[in-house]
């Protein structure tokens, strides 16, 4: 299929030379501090002026070099950004992969008729994906048209073809009774301590205005230290308050949680006073993630997030349900993504040894050092933690697993926060297999499915070597087949 496409002149273009005015102005503030120092320390001697002039000249030179060494080219369906000074680098971005173009005009740029053009390719990570800082506004508009012309021709029909989902269909209104599960997640349990810390902070902040100073604070501290029973009592009260205040805080944020469909969006609404509304485009949802603490597992409840492409801060914004019974979690996950019931395949016994070693060994080492140094109390505490590590390590091993049901893959790990991710095969953009020196001794690897959504990668930790390669090959046979040993 050929797309009508206005081919631009394929010659390297530079940023506008007007940019040379911006950079020196922008660096000036960073020069002011040392400059002031030079002027103050050196007085009005000629030398200080020389230093100041050298600083300005340096920034101008830097700006000129940056400008002169950078160029961009649009040619044969791709954008090339290149920089060449001592080192050389070229970034090639196929125009087809450009998802969005963002033109902004900061204050200085606006004065000079310049603009910043940022490219969104959907490439992961925090690295800049592509930026043209300092082209004329007209050039920015021209480039936007050129860069996006293909994109629209390809994407637009696809959008129209999708049937509209039913309007405002409520999937779940979370009953008040479920609020009691809130404290099980653990996150809200520390509310009392957070409140006390906040109160102490406020006291310090306002104390000065009420005529109290550090001596008073020290006096209060000493008085408290002199009454240990009072301190212990306060600590006990705080600990007793943990579940209650935690529940109250949880209820405050998750009051009347409603999940409903509006058009082709999933909308989650919650909150007692501030209603927080997050809407997720359904066609961008690629999977889900379920997390449970040990307490939640015992109570058969869990938390649920959607794995969505192009959604930053997915841990808070992707939340589909507050702490809810497993059955409800399963229903909503099936509704949002699709049913998944495939059993997880366990990892080799070597993985159990590794989980146990990692859960126990640090505490044993700490205990030995503390006994040797004569801190018996800390030694005992470390020994207790080492014993607890046996249960933790075994549970961590039981959590490990991965599977594939033909359309979705799933991986699970963790104990105190056991998390299972279920991700569609089409969301996978690549594989990474990692092996540390210790894993190599044990014949294990960590296989990571690269996904352009959610956290970016979903790990099957400590899988067997052959198992890991077979897993990747099962999910994406076309990609892996040429590299497998038969």
């Amino acid at each position, binding site marked *: 299929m050929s797309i009508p496409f206005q081919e631009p002149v394929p010659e390297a273009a530079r940023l506008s030379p007007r940019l040379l005015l911006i950079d020196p102005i922008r660096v000036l503030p960073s020069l002011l501090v040392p400059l002031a120092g030079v002027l103050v320390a050196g007085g009005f001697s000629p030398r200080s002026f020389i230093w100041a002039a050298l600083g300005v000249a340096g920034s101008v030179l830097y700006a000129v070099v940056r400008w002169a060494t950078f160029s961009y080219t649009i040619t044969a369906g791709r954008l090339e950004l290149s920089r060449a000074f001592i080192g050389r680098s070229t970034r090639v971005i196929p125009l*087809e992969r450009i998802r969005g173009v963002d033109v902004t005009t900061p204050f200085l740029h606006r004065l000079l008729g310049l603009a910043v053009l940022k490219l969104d390719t959907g490439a992961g990570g925090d690295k800049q994906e592509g930026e043209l800082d300092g082209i004329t506004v007209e050039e920015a508009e021209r480039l936007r048209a050129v860069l996006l012309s293909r994109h629209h021709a390809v994407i637009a029909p696809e959008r129209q073809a999708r049937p509209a989902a039913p309007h405002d269909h409520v999937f779940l209104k979370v009953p008040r009774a479920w609020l009691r599960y809130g404290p099980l997640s653990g996150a809200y349990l520390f509310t009392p301590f957070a409140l006390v810390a906040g109160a102490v902070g406020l006291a310090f902040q306002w104390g000065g205005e009420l005529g109290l100073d550090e001596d008073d604070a020290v006096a209060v501290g000493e008085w408290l230290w002199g009454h240990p029973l009072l301190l212990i009592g306060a600590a006990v009260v705080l600990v007793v308050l943990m579940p209650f205040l935690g529940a109250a805080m949880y209820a405050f944020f998750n009051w009347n949680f409603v999940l409903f469909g509006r058009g082709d969006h999933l909308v989650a609404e919650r909150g007692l006073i501030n209603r927080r509304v997050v809407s997720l485009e359904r066609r961008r949802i690629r999977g889900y993630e379920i997390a449970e603490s040990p307490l939640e597992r015992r109570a058969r409840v869990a938390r649920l997030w959607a794995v969505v492409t192009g959604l930053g801060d997915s841990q808070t914004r992707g939340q589909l349900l507050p702490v809810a019974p497993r059955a409800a979690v399963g229903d909503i996950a099936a509704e949002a993504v699709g049913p998944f019931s495939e059993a997880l395949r366990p990892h080799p016994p070597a993985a159990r040894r590794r989980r146990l070693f990692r859960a126990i060994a640090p505490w044993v080492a700490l205990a030995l050092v503390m006994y040797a140094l004569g801190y018996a109390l800390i030694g005992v505490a470390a020994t207790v933690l080492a014993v607890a590590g046996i249960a933790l390590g075994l549970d961590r091993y039981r959590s490990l697993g991965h599977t594939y049901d033909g359309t979705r893959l799933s991986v699970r790990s963790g104990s105190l926060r056991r998390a299972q991710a279920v991700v569609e095969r089409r969301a996978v953009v690549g594989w990474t297999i990692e092996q540390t020196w210790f894993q190599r001794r044990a014949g294990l690897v960590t296989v990571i*499915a690269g996904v352009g959504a959610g956290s*970016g990668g979903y790990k099957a930790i400590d899988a067997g070597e052959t198992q890991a390669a077979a897993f990747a090959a099962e999910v994406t046979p076309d990609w892996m087949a040429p590299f497998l040993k038969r």
Partner: protein
Amino acid sequence: MRDALRDPANQVSPRARSLWFAEAVIVTVLLVVGLVLLSMWMTGWEFLPQWLLDRTWVAALAIGLVLVPFVLAEPVVRFAVHRWELAADVVYARSGWLSRKWVFVPVSRIQTVDKAQGWLERFFGLATVEIRTASYAGSSTIKGLDYEVAARLAEELSRRAQELRDDAT
């Protein structure tokens, strides 16, 4: 992994050994010089016991001696481990030294292709190709390539990435 995956077809440039050696030497020298400077500075620390003050140079010497075998081994091991291949429109690259990493990046999911050459790489006539997709776990950095090879690979990858339609993500 020897039973599961075959080696990628291509080795990196033999000059990459020189690059890794130079990098390791630079890091080691900086570390040892830093420790020597620290030990010279520490002689003024009255609160430390005298036996320690007399021997502040030991740390610099010990670190230097411990690192020497690593500096010598790293280039050789890396040259054996680092390999790459472009087959069936998938980039397969292996890297690592004490640890290992295998990366598979299908060309159809590539978002950007970078070809970069730092000043040390330029000195040895080497370059790095960095391939990025929408995920960190689907992105690969191939170091130590001959400059011509890197240029050809980057060109080939961006050409194929344009031809193949990205159907998902």
